[in-house]
């Protein structure tokens, strides 16, 4: 689901990656307005936890709901987040706001931007399946704090996280696309 000004292309790339790498069937829900209810005057940013709460209340039948937003997200202890998810819950959100920039300043190419968006989406959705941050260097669940860190991450899960994910699908009764 898109909230606010999010391009069609990035949405389709995220969906394709979720379907391919997580092997999950994905529906695209109608776009909605930017999440103004989560705006904080103090922080001049959007409160990620409030967005998650709203998403989790959705009456849609989908077991997981991911929102893409173009605004900058925060949680009260942190200056910003690229994405946020309910651990073992239903909702996840990805902010595209900081993904278009280089840490050292300037913009990045569209390819890099799309890849970053896909990585954050996969990472956050995996949190909803109880996956925690991974210490393996070659794993998308590795914690990344800056956009450059994101570029270092591979677009796949390590074998441990893959196994945890499989186990979680069984636990939550999720049918994989290729089963």
């Amino acid at each position, binding site marked *: 689901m898109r909230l606010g000004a999010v391009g069609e292309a990035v949405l389709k790339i995220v969906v394709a990656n979720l379907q391919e790498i997580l092997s999950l069937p994905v529906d695209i829900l109608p776009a909605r307005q930017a999440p103004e209810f989560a705006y904080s005057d103090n*922080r001049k940013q959007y409160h990620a*936890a409030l967005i998650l709460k709203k998403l989790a209340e959705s009456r849609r039948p989908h077991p997981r709901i991911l929102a893409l937003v173009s605004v900058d997200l*925060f*949680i*009260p*202890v*942190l*200056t*910003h*987040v690229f994405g*946020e*998810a309910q*651990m073992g819950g239903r909702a996840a959100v990805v902010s595209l706001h900081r993904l278009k920039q280089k840490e050292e300043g300037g913009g990045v190419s569209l390819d890099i931007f799309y890849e970053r968006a896909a990585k954050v989406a996969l990472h956050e959705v995996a*949190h909803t399946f109880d996956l*925690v*941050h*991974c*210490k393996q260097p070659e794993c998308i669940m590795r*914690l990344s*704090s*800056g956009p450059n860190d994101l570029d270092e991450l591979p677009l796949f899960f390590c074998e441990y996280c893959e196994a945890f994910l499989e186990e979680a699908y069984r636990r939550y009764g999720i049918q994989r696309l290729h089963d």
Partner: protein
Amino acid sequence: MADKVRILVVDDELVIRESLHGWLKKSGYQVDTAEGGSAALAMLEKTAYDLLFLDIMMPVMSGIEVLEVVKEDYPQTLVVMITAYGSVETAVQAMKRGANDYLMKPFDPDQLSLLTEKLMQQKRIMDENIFLREQMAEAIRFENLVGRSEAMQELFTLIQDVAESDSPVLITGETGTGKELVAKAIHAKSARCNGPFIAVNCGGFPENLLESELFGHERGAFTGAHRAKKGRLDLAHHGTLFLDEVGTVPPKMQVDLLRVLETKEFHRLGGTAEIEVDFRTIAATNRDLQQAIEKGEFRQDFFYRLNVISLHIPPLRERRDDIPLLAEHFLDRYSRETNKDIDTINKEAMGLLRQYDWPGNVRELENAIERAVVIGKKRRLDPEEFSFLAPHLSAAAETYSLEKTQVAHLFKVLKEFDWNITKAAQALEINRVTLHKKIKKYDLRPDRASS
């Protein structure tokens, strides 16, 4: 995965608690939250946290106050102070008081993850150090004897030297100092270690039974001797015979034993056949045998035979530096045996243990720790768990607290007047009602100690 690391987030703001909790949980840490200092301290009593995120500005109990308790009672827990923008000075103060680091709200995610990683690494090193220290403590423990005081180190060296010879040893020391442990250590380090270690408590038998116990008897040697029985001298063949409380051996038997020690031959009661034995003798006593000799209660020749090498074990009050090590050793043992998660003795309680004279020595200390572990309900032992020792301690020693001094004094006076309120009140120069109020306030009872 960091599933074994336990973190406690202490902040009065729900949003901070929730978001930090969520973020840390995503990194696989086990996270709990507390909304204030008292709740945090109550949780720390029950759970060993590796890391504390502690807000400086909290109502009722400030983060600095909590920090002070944590650093004193739970030094293994690392603390990161959380501070609001503009209160860096307080954070620096907190660092001076032992906080491991501080973070300013809101944190940069990069900074938070790097700091958490760094502290977890530090914690791993700390835990490794504790493990190494425990191993060292194990190394200085000599066959269950514990001590790092100079006196005990000398004793360990002596045990090593003595073990190499085959001469008789006389161990002296007060009751409960571990004389049998020393005897066993000598045996274990000696060439006879594969032979038996046979202990006889000479004070534990009436004269005729001791004789039969030591020498054995043939069938029908006396009424009730329905079958032949090997004596302890026999059983000690190729091993070590440990004569505990040798000072209680009756004079007649001293002669018999002296002969056995000299000839290494004896015969059982009611028997005539000489039995040859080969054992090493180690004797122990808490009596002053020189004095017993002067009084004619102990034979000088028997004494010389036993006392070829003498070892003295100092009483615990003369090696108070060993008390913490011993106390921790017993705490470790009894918390494991009773399956209780008690891992420290608080500083004040340790002070009490060091201060007490331990007339029953190590055995009494062991019993005290066992008792405290059994009654203990928290993760650490506090002075109240050792209240049964307090009546024997000098009233206000090592405390400047007016209240504690008062309680101790009240207890002392009440005890002195056999809990007669009228007499105690007169002595205290207060009226009975006031005394009653104080007794109620401090819950003073004859079966309780003043602390």
